[in-house]
């Protein structure tokens, strides 16, 4: 009798265990596991309400014709986006600054997927995951190749892998076609730089913009190691490096460069002598870091130099 009771007890425990094991299995079947910069997250098969917290992810969604429900737009509305991307999107809700998105607004949108940036949002991933499945990618910090790789992950997360891979292949051939326009004999060095009231921050060869420009055939004036994409420079650094072409991304109306112009040394620079200092669209060159942006940057650079 007691032996029989014991058998039933064992059976019921076994049943309980198999039931507990089955719960996560069934929930896995309702979505797919996406590997990202901070582990793995189960994401619904076809997410419909997506919140993006960095501009390169807006670019990714726009590339496959998806409009996010929420965008961290730095409280600038449509003006935060480049018009080439804004025009591709339908209605979206601002969710605050990229640096500090409003979790309240994000959760009020009932998202089923959040795409966050590794550098900016590492600390709030726990909260974001409480709202909706969150994947974390390199947007702000990544190189050009990193960002293209992120596009693949986003395609997978959206359940639109085929479409995204097709778009990436298209992007590759667009960039190749642009690179073909740059003569192989091109020997000028370029230096993209962000400038503000009292600073000059060069984007070297391992930065997003630097790597992209190298892809189409423009050698960066600062060949930097991976992981050291930026360099804070003085006028003396600039004279020592003396790039042939300088692209300025201005973060303020009056910049440090305006002060340098009054120094006779400014006119020593090759880029100044040859009139090769180009002020470019800051939002496009310094902030978007996606495929659509890359195609426009590359085309703009070629237009400016030939």
């Amino acid at each position: 009798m007691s032996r029989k009771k014991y058998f039933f007890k064992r059976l019921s425990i076994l049943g309980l265990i198999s039931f507990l094991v089955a719960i996560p299995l069934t929930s896995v079947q309702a979505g797919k596991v996406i590997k990202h910069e901070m582990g793995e997250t189960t994401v619904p098969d076809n997410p419909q309400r997506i919140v993006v917290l960095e501009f390169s992810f807006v670019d990714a969604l726009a590339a496959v014709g998806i409009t996010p429900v929420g965008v961290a737009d730095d409280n600038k509305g449509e003006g935060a986006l480049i018009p080439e991307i804004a025009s591709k999107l339908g209605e979206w809700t601002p969710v605050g600054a990229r640096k500090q998105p409003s979790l309240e607004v994000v959760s009020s949108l009932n998202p089923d997927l959040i795409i966050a940036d590794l550098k900016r949002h590492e600390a709030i991933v726990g909260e974001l995951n409480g709202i909706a499945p969150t994947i974390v990618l390199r947007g702000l910090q990544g190189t050009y190749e990193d960002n293209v790789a992120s596009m693949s992950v986003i395609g997978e997360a959206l359940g639109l892998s085929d479409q995204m891979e097709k778009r990436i292949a298209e992007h590759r051939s667009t960039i190749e076609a642009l690179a073909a326009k740059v003569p192989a004999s091109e020997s000028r060095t370029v230096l993209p730089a962000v400038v503000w009231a009292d600073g000059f921050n060069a984007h070297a060869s391992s930065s997003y913009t630097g790597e992209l420009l190298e892809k189409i055939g423009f050698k960066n004036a600062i060949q930097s190691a991976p992981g050291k994409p930026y360099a804070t420079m003085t006028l003396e650094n600039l004279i020592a490096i003396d790039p042939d072409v300088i692209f300025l991304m201005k973060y303020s109306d009056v910049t440090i460069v305006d002060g340098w112009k009054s120094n006779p040394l400014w006119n020593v620079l090759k880029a100044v002598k040859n009139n090769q200092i180009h002020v470019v669209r800051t939002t496009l060159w310094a902030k978007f870091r996606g495929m659509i942006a890359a195609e426009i940057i590359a085309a703009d650079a070629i237009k400016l130099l030939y």
Partner: protein
Amino acid sequence: MANTTNSVSTRRVSRRLPYLKAFVISFLLLIIGLLLSTTIGAVEGINAKVFFLSLVQYDGSIEHLIMRTLRMPRAALGALVGANLAIAGLLMQGISRNPLASPGIFGVNAGASLFVALTFTGVYGAAATDASSITLPFVGPLGIVPVAFLGAAFGGVLVYFLGGVASGRVNPVRLVLAGVAVSTLLASLMKGAIILRDDQTDSIVFWLAGAVDGSDWNDVRTILPWTIVGLGTTVYLAVSLNLLALGEDVAVGLGRNIHVIRAIGGLGIICVAGSAVAVAGPITFVGLIVPHICRRLIGVDHRVLLALAPLLGATMMVYSDILARFIAYPFESPAGIVTALVGGPYFLYLTQRTRID
């Protein structure tokens, strides 16, 4: 007569270093530092010969231009900022009779940098960051120096009252606690202001550490008058500070008005620390440790300290700026990193030594 001579010479012996020797050594160190500062940089081949030739036989070549328009003002600015901070530290330690007093710890730097950051980040609606004309509501156009002065006064006065100096119950630890609390509060307000303006975060982060790398003669012209004002203040107060060091009762007994001494000293501190923050950002620890080093070298007489402290402050700052160049050579790193690396441990050592009454 013989007796007097004897006692004077005994005092000389008890001093750790003869005045002249201390001054000559500091002066030589500073001169060597200035030479190194002007001969180390991204463009190579600019040596001591260029330094002298550009002074006596200026020919407008690229080397001479780099020397005269970039490296010399940078070295000069570093020296002046260091001198200012050392004067600020000396005055603060003197009037508060607190060995841990310095513009970095007592909220003066934090206040000045908060005000500058607020105007720079455009919280007051100034989108452009033209440093020469910032418009405040109700106040009108204001240069960066007055803004920094206002901030320095704000931070300093706040700590002064919270620390209980005004009520006459001066407790060194209470003052330091008030200073740390106020500095932290002001720093977090500043970070709040920075978050509101995402674009320029990196620039402000660089500025927050304090640096003299991008300076020109305009910056030197901005700070120089205030260095002179600061020196004048210490000369005027030297004897009073010596008496104050013997105790407030002694100073009062000998006919000094403590409130006047503190008020004049406070104004002097605002001028030297505020102008240093305006041109170089909140550089820490120079103001704290230089007066201590000076007292170790030559004793506690403010009449001599007032000359040695600026000299050593300048030396420390010039060498810190040289070392900072090697952190990410040939690119720039803020010199404030180096002063903090040297000064932080020294501060901990000082707090260890300070008795809590």
